């Protein structure tokens, strides 16, 4: 799986970063930056929690095509 994001939706809550620093970070404008796209099986739970914690659903997981 890989992480995807929509910068038009992101409001810079930073919830994702607080939960999953490996995959998410904030840029200088305070918006989300995906640090690492790839999500391993072991990382899956943490990534899911970060995604659920986003109040505006600006991040999600997709299948690698």
């Amino acid at each position, binding site marked *: 799986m890989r992480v995807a994001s929509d910068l038009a939706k992101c*409001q810079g*809550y*930073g919830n994702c970063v607080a939960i999953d620093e490996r995959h998410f970070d904030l840029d200088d404008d305070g918006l989300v930056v995906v640090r690492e796209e790839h999500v391993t099986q072991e990382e899956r739970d943490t990534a899911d929690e970060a995604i659920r914690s986003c*109040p*505006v659903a600006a991040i999600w997981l997709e299948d690698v095509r």
Partner: protein
Amino acid sequence: MTIDQSLPSQRVSDLIDITAGEISREIFVDEAIHKQELENLFPRAWLFVGHASQVPNPGDYFSSWMGSDPVLLTRDDRGEIYVLLNSCRHRGMKVCRYDEGNTMQFTCPYHAWSYSIDGSLVDVPGDLHGVPHLKSAYQGQLEKAKWGLVRCPRVHNYKGLVFATWDEQAPDFLDYVGDFHWWLDNLADAFDGTEGGTEVFHGVLKWRIKSNWKFVSENFLGDTYHGASTHASVEAVGIGPGGKGKRRHGERQNQGGFSKGRMKTSFRLGHGASDNLDYELPYPEFAEPELTEYFEHAWNKRAEKLRAEGRPLGGRGPATMFPNMSFAAGFPRSILVAHPISPTETEVWRWFLVDKDAPDFVREWLRQYYMRYGGPAGMTEQDDMENWDYATNASRGVVARRYPYNYQQGLDREQPSELDRAVHSDHAIAGEVNARAFYRRWAEYVDNLSQQELTERAQVDERIDRIKERQAKSAAELEGQA
């Protein structure tokens, strides 16, 4: 917050003379008194918020009011019910503007602070879960745990009826209700006696009237006196179960207000009902035989169950739980809350209940009956609203306000009751004992007696002593004659 001290300080108890049976009109029209009610009564009493069946699933919410404050009745991810103040902690925006729905988070429309009711994301449902630009706006320092939606500290789910109070010092719900709970039981239990076997039927009817909220409470509390005049036209039309020529609540001609053995019940705690527990009123005869059969079966099942428990079968109301939750637990079976808007405006909400396991033909019959009976377009409701609006309007005048209302029916004619701190009227229709007790309790709250004083005052019902004195006196007189 305290009351504006520039107002002449007045004790509302001075406006209520329950010994003489006179109550000043000011309490129905005066701005300052209304403000005192909002400050001292509504945040300290137990109020009806909504029904658990309105929020059956995790994430469900229902928007309601407690006095002057908008609240959200919510169910979190573990199935727990919460009552949250529907006002953002940032600038007060109403975080949720829908009547009901499902969501795990309330994101404020103004600056998008986001509150969650998902216990896996926040410590307590309603907590602040995110603010936009946390990093730049607050340098990541905002103490989110401190800025959650304000939570109502006391919530009680009574057989699906959800009550709440803002006051940590308030008595437990069951102590607040006392023996009046029998009426709540009949409201919440199914027609066949199944405990808590009811659910809310469709939406909530909401409308505004140009009237003081206490007119509504008082009417349901025990004003059976108005029926024959106010509802004469409804009776003529025949909107009840039996159709034309039959009565609107389905009573036979010798029942209801006209029956022998029916009395009103008045509690020292302020609650009141138009009937008593020993007064049995079987379900009506319907124009449609299959409905008569259905309800006859339900009545027999209930009678058997309750008799086995040693419980009387009466107690259907209409009734009012102090201060502003009124209901009837028969035909119709409906809850009516009078939300105070101003001294002369009230928003009335009507919920209708139906048995969870009621078949479609029963639901459909009740739906039609409820529509023609209640709500802004219902005929019975229109009759009452007309009175309350005009009564409020004609009581606002400078001269009108000099003259009190009369509450003298049944003065010193109260009858003893087997219930705790309660008395009965001596007549089914006449008798304003319920209203007198309601306004006394109202004044105790509005004059801001402490919760401890409120409890102490209601510890004894001196009306019972008066009854005993009266009985002793007449016994002595009889002896003197002998």
